[in-house]
C-alpha cells in the first residue's frame, strides 16, 4: 500500500531545516551538514523507485541521512593516524602541567543542557511539520524569516486580523507540541 507519495520538488522547502538541525546535532559543522543534506537529496532521487510508501517521506529521507552521517564518520576514522597531533609545553615554566589542565572546563553547562539544546532544533521543526500547510508557512515567515505583517498579508491576501488568528493558533499548537515532545 502506497500511502505516501514522493514529491521531490518540495523536499528543500519542507525538510531542509529539519534535516539540517538533525545533522548539525550529530556532526557539529555547518558546511559539512549542508553537504550531507545535498548528498541525501541526491541519493533520495536516485533510489526513488525503492520508496514503498510505508513510511513518510521525511522518515525515509532521515534514514538515508543517517547512513550518510555514518559513512562520513567511517571516512574520518580511516584517516586516523595519518595526522599526528603533538602538543608541547610552551616554555619550561609550565612543564609538568597536564593536558587536562589546559582544557576549558565548562562547569556552567551540564551535559543535560547540551543535549536539550542540540535536540531543540529538531524538536521545533518536528512540531512545525505537525501544523497545517497555511499555519506552517505563515508561522515560519513571521517567526523565523522575520517578514513584516504587511508583507505576509499581501502575499496571502489576508487581513492583519486573519494573520494574527493564524499566528495565535500556530503558536498555541507549537507550544503544546514542544511541551509534550521536548521539555
Amino acid at each position, binding site marked *: 500500500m502506497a500511502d505516501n507519495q514522493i514529491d521531490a520538488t518540495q523536499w528543500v522547502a519542507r525538510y531542509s531545516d529539519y534535516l539540517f*538541525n538533525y545533522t548539525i546535532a550529530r556532526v557539529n559543522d555547518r558546511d559539512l551538514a*549542508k553537504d550531507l543534506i*545535498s548528498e541525501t537529496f541526491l541519493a533520495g532521487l536516485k533510489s526513488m523507485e525503492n520508496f514503498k510508501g510505508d513510511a513518510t517521506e521525511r522518515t525515509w529521507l532521515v534514514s538515508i541521512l543517517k547512513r550518510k552521517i555514518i559513512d562520513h564518520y567511517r571516512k574520518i576514522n580511516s584517516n586516523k593516524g595519518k595526522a599526528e597531533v603533538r602538543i608541547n609545553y610552551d616554555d619550561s615554566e609550565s612543564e609538568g602541567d597536564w593536558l587536562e589542565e589546559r582544557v576549558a572546563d565548562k562547569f556552567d553547562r551540564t551535559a543535560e543542557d547540551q543535549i536539550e539544546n542540540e535536540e531543540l532544533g529538531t524538536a521545533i521543526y518536528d512540531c512545525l511539520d505537525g501544523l497545517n500547510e497555511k499555519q506552517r508557512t505563515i508561522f515560519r515567515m513571521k517567526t523565523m524569516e522575520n517578514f513584516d505583517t504587511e508583507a505576509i498579508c499581501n502575499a496571502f491576501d489576508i487581513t492583519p486580523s486573519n494573520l494574527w488568528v493564524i499566528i495565535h493558533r500556530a503558536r498555541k499548537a507549537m507550544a503544546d507540541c514542544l511541551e509534550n515532545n521536548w521539555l
Partner: protein
Amino acid sequence: MKLECHEANHICDKSQYKEATFWEKVRLNIHLIYCRACQKYTARNTKLTKAVKNPKVNTVSKEEKADLQELLNKQLSGK
C-alpha cells in the same frame, strides 16, 4: 480600560514580535496581575519565542536553500 482575555492574548502575541504599543503592553500587564489563564499563556508564549530564537536552532538560509533546490532541479530534469 478593562481588557478581555482574548484581547490580552492578542496583545501578547503581538508583543512576541515587538509589535505591541506601549499602552497595549501596560494594559496587558495590568490584566496579567489578576488573570491566571493569561499568565500561563504569556509564560508559554514567551518560552516558545525564546526556544525559536535559541542560537542552537539552525535555519538554512534562503541562498543555501536556493542552491539546494537548483541542484535538485538539475537532477530532476536530467531524468
